[in-house]
């Protein structure tokens, strides 16, 4: 199967005051298309950094980050922004919804960057909300919805532009067990029935069990890999 994501000898460091902290040490990672991958590990293990590099939100100090055949290291900031619109959907722990916008308007945000007409955008939004089971809540604002519903809106926003890759940063970290399972089931459905490649960062072993493969990191190094399905 072709690679959706390929990281080759990736080194990444941050500055903390005067100190330079290397969080990824010549990391090699390959994620096949259509995989549901969970990245696990303690805080500061580098898992969110990997997610940011794959999503083109951050740049590696050295090495190659190739996503969907595109070497992200060679793209400018503007090119990366356009690339993200077309190829990646992000799902955040705290949903990051616009509180003043309705669910539909929040979902529509990525489509504003496309050339779709208003009618086409509405159609896409309706489909995305239907996929996450929120067709009847499109006029509701985030403050009028539960955490699980807000995360579903976040997922609808992530898939509305039909990206091939979904990057999830602790998507169930702010939810109770039951709601978390519903969200994870939804992600698995997107993976299995809509062929989305999903990379999910999580601390939660039960959440990670929904993935097909788990990678454990510690201090920027891959320490364990488990294949579940």
């Amino acid at each position, binding site marked *: 199967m072709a690679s959706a994501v390929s990281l080759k000898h990736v080194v990444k460091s941050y500055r903390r005051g005067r100190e330079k902290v290397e969080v990824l040490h010549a990391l090699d990672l390959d994620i096949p298309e259509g995989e549901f991958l969970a990245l696990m590990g303690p805080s500061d293990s580098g898992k969110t950094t990997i997610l940011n590099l794959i999503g083109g*939100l951050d740049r590696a100090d050295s090495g190659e980050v190739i996503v969907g055949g595109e070497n992200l290291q060679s793209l400018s900031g*503007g090119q990366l922004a356009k*690339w993200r619109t077309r190829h990646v959907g*992000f799902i955040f722990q705290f949903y*990051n919804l*616009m509180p*003043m916008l309705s669910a539909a308007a929040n979902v529509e*945000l990525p489509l504003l960057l496309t050339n779709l007409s208003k009618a086409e955008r509405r159609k896409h939004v309706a489909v995305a909300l239907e996929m996450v089971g929120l067709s009847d809540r499109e006029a509701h604002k985030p403050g009028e919805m539960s955490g699980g519903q807000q995360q579903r809106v976040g997922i609808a926003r992530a898939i509305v532009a039909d990206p091939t890759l979904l990057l999830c940063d602790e998507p169930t970290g702010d939810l109770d067990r039951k709601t978390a399972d519903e969200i994870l089931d939804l992600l698995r459905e997107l993976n299995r029935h809509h062929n989305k490649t999903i990379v999910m960062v999580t601390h939660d072993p039960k959440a990670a069990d929904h993935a097909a493969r788990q990678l454990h990191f510690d201090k920027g190094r891959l320490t364990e890999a488990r294949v579940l399905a």
Partner: protein
Amino acid sequence: MKYFPLVWAALWRKPTRLILTLLSVSVAFTLFGVMIGFNASVQNVIALSPMNRAGTGARFGGPLPYAYKDQILKIPGVTKVTGFAGLPGYYRDKKNNVPILMVDPDAPDVIALDFTLTQAQWAQLAQTRDGVFVSQLEAQRYGLKTGDQFPVLTTAVTRQDGGKAWAFKVLGVVPDSTYFFNGIIVGNYKFLDETRPLAQRGTVGGYQVLSTSEDRAESAAKDIDAHFANSATPTNTMTQRDASEAAAEAGINVPFVTSVVAGAGLFMILFLTGNGIAQSVRERIPEFAMLKTLGFSDAGVMALVFVEAAIPCLLGAAIGIAVSKLFAAQVPHLFPPNMPTVPAPYMSPAVLSLAFVFAVIVAFASAVIPALRIRRLDVAAALTGR
């Protein structure tokens, strides 16, 4: 246009802040409009002053002989002369001072620009001894309309028969003129001269003199004064433009004062809107980070910040200028008749354009630092709280 709901939602995130900002900007632009409009009004009066015209009065005060008119006409460069006299009186109550300017038949050839009478109305005035034309403002003050009797009582000027009542008839109500911004009533000099005591007849309060060209007005003014220098009543002649400029600068430097006051208002608003937009952006750093994550470009999010700043500035400016325009229309009504006053602010297209330009400048200046901050925003760091 498709981004407008995004901006609109951001603006209404804190309604109190939006309304207070809008109010502040409106007040500042009301002040700006009144000040700049006032300055434009003064400049307009000066600009409208015909450069080929001069005014002649008695050097040491008092009336001038009407016989001077023919002598002035003979001075090289002079083409037309008209004499005029004021009739100080009041209508019904002593506090209702009415300024009646009694003009001779040559007035339309020399001072027509100062009034709004048509040629037919000038002719009607010349043929009607006791007729007057009343400006809109004066008509409103005293409830006058065409055909009304308009009795004016005088204190200083009596009639030949010893009476003090002057029975005028309103021939028409004419639009207010830029020059007589506090209202004017114009009557027939012949009526004044033939009705007052014999000893006072044959005199005028002054002359307005028209020269062949703008260049000749200055020299004609000097020649007139030289001609009457050794007479019993020497004259003092000043070109109309010099007179207007001198009057405008007699008390205060209008352009300087109006600019300083308007500028101070805008400067305060710059800080207020700048602080407001900076605070609003600071509160929404994660939202901007999310937008950039979704693919909004640096220029795109900066544009959102600029538009967010521009809307209250432009809306506030529009409200402020509209209020100052309403206020400008009321200025002449705020002062009693015959009292020295300020001209009504002239809300010319230039003033409106200037307000628009300053609104854009204030919006841009107040948004530039927050917008740059958003441009430099490290998305990965903002999303992870670093």
